[in-house]
């Protein structure tokens, strides 16, 4: 670094404590103008806390922050944005019924009482064009895709004159193609002299876009390294503190009879619009079928239909040998369908109930936990202890409320519950979303083990890596239809990515929505 170097921002020895946890422990972090600096770490490593301190949401207990070399003290996000620091959170903070332009100026001080809409819209458009963030300033937020909403959030910050942009896992909601475009935008902003902090735990992306990388682990600073010359395994071991294997062993296995057959399924979404159209798919015993697709193309509806949580409008369904169409959830559970839902805490668990009770959320109806009328608390506890041990769930005790578990451990609770029922079929929706490397490895191994034991697994994910690593077959879901199927070992990322964006497959070897491959 040259002697004239003044970082755009510098955080020195930041410590932030929450009751019972030290979220950041004497962390140093800084970035220069025109730099993309990735902040890398597992869940709970303290990335978001550190950035919430920088953007004024939290106040550090110890340490100092400098902007352009001057000490600052932020008491609110307003102070931070006045100093040029803006953060785009993982969960967008937009008002759905208002227009893009209205959202951009929302909460801004110094806006005239009568809005000069035309000027604001023009400025929004100009910023959008300058940085490659195309969005119609008059569109209502609810009409926009998730990717477009993200653009609005970024424009919001740029409109406020942010020089330092903090992006919290921005690519989690984007398709591979959208991600590429998004990276171009980041480079535009970088060329314009902005400072970008890119929070992520996706190693490929970090290596592709960042200039420097800072790794946090357990709330502490581990390393700050230039991205050039780093490799994935090196970064991963910095993050996790040990070596990580990326590939999972997928032994060749003869697939058995179809366990789950969907034939011409149709269903509506929550707004009563068609979400699934004439969808046909089958999953055999001993295979993992990956459903790739951008979020919002019918994934949730597909999973819910199979689990009896959403009515069918058309089609037939077979589970095992039995035709079960449009039955309530209890029938699907008893038929041997296990479901790992995409929202662990909102659907998959009861947060104030104990770990033991959450493990018995379905099995309380059967021995040993449940009798005709009563439940046996002792059996519930014993069973919980077994599962906690078998699935290596880190919990202080079986009586701990499940909301106190980390995301990875809560996911293990859900997997343990679902798998311990010896299901015929497992529907796994985004099973590793938001989990760190260690937990992800764990969850994938569990799924693979179930496949090897003969379960039929439908894996719904937008993480292509995951789909590629685990799946025997890949089906691509676009606007409620399966637009094509690819055998897992012959799939390439480009083709699947294009199909996710809606183009039908043309290449040889890729059969549109057919599954002749695995007949044995």
């Amino acid at each position, binding site marked *: 670094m040259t002697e004239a170097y003044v970082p755009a921002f510098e955080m020195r020895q930041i410590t932030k404590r929450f009751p019972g946890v030290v979220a950041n422990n004497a962390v140093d972090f800084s970035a220069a103008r025109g730099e993309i600096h990735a902040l890398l770490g597992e869940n709970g490593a303290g990335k978001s806390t550190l950035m919430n301190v920088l953007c004024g949401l939290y106040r550090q207990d110890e340490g100092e922050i400098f902007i352009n070399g*001057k000490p600052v003290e932020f008491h609110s996000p307003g102070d931070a944005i*006045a*100093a040029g620091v803006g953060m785009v959170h993982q969960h967008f903070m937009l008002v759905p019924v208002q227009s893009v332009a209205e959202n951009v100026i929302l909460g801004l001080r110094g806006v005239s009482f009568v809005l000069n809409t035309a000027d604001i819209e023009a400025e929004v458009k100009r910023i959008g064009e300058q940085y490659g963030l195309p969005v119609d300033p008059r569109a209502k937020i609810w009409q926009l895709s998730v990717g477009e909403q993200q653009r609005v959030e970024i424009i919001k910050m740029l409109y406020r004159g942010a020089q330092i942009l903090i992006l919290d896992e921005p690519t989690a909601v984007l398709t591979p193609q959208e991600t590429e475009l998004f990276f171009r935008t980041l480079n535009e902003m970088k060329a314009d002299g902005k400072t970008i902090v890119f929070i992520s735990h996706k190693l490929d992306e970090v290596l592709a876009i960042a200039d420097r990388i800072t790794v946090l682990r357990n709330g502490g600073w581990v390393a700050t390294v230039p991205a050039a010359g780093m490799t994935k395994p090196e970064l991963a071991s910095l993050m996790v503190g040990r070596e990580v294997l990326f590939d999972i062993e997928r032994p060749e296995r003869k697939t058995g009879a179809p366990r789950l057959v969907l034939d011409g399924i149709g269903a509506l979404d929550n707004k009563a619009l068609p979400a699934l159209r004439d969808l046909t798919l089958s999953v055999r015993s001993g295979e993992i079928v990956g459903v790739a697709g951008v979020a919002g193309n019918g994934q949730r509806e597909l999973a819910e239909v199979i689990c009896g949580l959403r009515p069918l409008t058309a089609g037939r369904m077979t589970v095992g040998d039995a035709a079960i169409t449009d039955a309530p*959830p209890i029938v699907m559970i008893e038929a041997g369908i296990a*479901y790992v839902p995409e929202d662990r805490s909102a*659907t998959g*668990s009861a947060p104030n109930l104990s770990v033991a009770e959450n493990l018995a*959320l379905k099995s309380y109806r059967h021995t040993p936990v449940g009798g005709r009328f009563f439940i046996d608390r002792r059996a519930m506890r014993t069973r919980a202890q077994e599962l906690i041990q078998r699935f290596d769930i880190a919990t202080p005790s079986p009586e701990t409320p499940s909301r106190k578990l980390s995301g990875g451990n809560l996911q293990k609770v859900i997997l343990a519950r679902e798998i311990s029922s010896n299901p015929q079929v497992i529907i796994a929706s985004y099973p590793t979303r938001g989990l760190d490397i260690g937990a992800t490895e764990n969850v994938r191994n569990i799924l693979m083990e179930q496949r090897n034991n003969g379960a039929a697994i439908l894996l719904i994910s937008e993480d292509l890596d995951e789909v590629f690593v685990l799946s025997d077959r890949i089906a691509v879901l676009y606007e409620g239809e399966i637009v094509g199927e690819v055998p897992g070992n012959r799939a390439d990322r480009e083709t699947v990515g294009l199909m996710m964006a809606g183009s039908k497959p043309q290449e040889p070897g890729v059969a549109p929505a057919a599954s002749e491959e695995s007949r044995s």
Partner: protein
Amino acid sequence: MSAQSAPQSRPKTQIRIERRAEQPRWLSILSPFILIAAALVVGALLLRMAGADPWALYARMARVAYGDRYGWSDTTIKATPLILAGLGVSIAFRMRLWNIGAEGQLFMGAFLATGVAIRWLSPETPMVIMLTVMAVAGFIGGAFWGLIPGVLKAKLNVNEIITTLMLNYVAAMWVNYFVYGPWSQRGFGLTPQFPANAWLPRLTDFSEQVPAFRGITAHFGIVLAIVLALILAVVWQRTRWGFAIRIMGDNPRAARYAGINLPRNIMLVMALSGGFAGLAGMSEVAGVVHRLQERFSPGYGFTAIIIAWLAKLNPIAIIVVSYLFGGLLVGADEIQPAGIAQLLQGVILFVVVGGEMMLRYQVRIER
């Protein structure tokens, strides 16, 4: 950039109010007592402003309510409907169904029980049969009144707070119609007295066998209330259905996901909740008033809401808290003007709701 000009490095003392990560167990057990004590202190201020000597007044109220066995008897009489209605309310609250219609359900229970006593069964019916049928009728009356909002909630997602609240007035008017109209005794707002076989046995009725019971008018309803509280405690802790209700109360989506039939259980719980309040109404007319009359309940169904809340929906705690409120009602009979008791109740509700919130936070002083 105002942030940069802010003075740096001068250590500032800050008082911060933070949410407690976890309510300690002792606090959650003690909180009803702390809150009632706080309410009494606030009430004392008001009484002082009214020119009374609050501490002497409280002491006298306590003596009247808990000072001797007659006091305990009177307090028990007041506590009985409070326990039953409080249990009823707590059933719905467990599932986060905000049934605030216990008062109306209590009236409908009393209404059907009265019908049995004075119209539908002969006065010669043996006591056991008479009272059993009255209890069943009382339960059904309340259950029906709870089921209406339950069905609306389950089938059409109609807000149960509004419907249960409004049905309170309907029930009161319905009873008024009967006590002034078809069942009226000479046009006054009351029915004829029940036949003796329709009276819940009182302790004083056994004074020939046990002389100590002479004058103790507490009736059999308290036994029913306590037995039902014990049964509920077992249901919540030990039964499959109780577990299912806990799941539904904590996260309805998880419950649906776990294969629990939500609409059916909403209806069932609302009916059960109303049924308990209906039993409170039956026990009141059969045990105390011995007839149906206009405004026979001084708002038991509303007080029950406070009780259920203070008791944190725990059936056993509901018994204890009901005795506290029963004592307040008995003691307040000693105070003039009579509005003071209601004022105290209002203050308690206010302090309880506000204080419950405050106990969830802690004050921390930083640097």
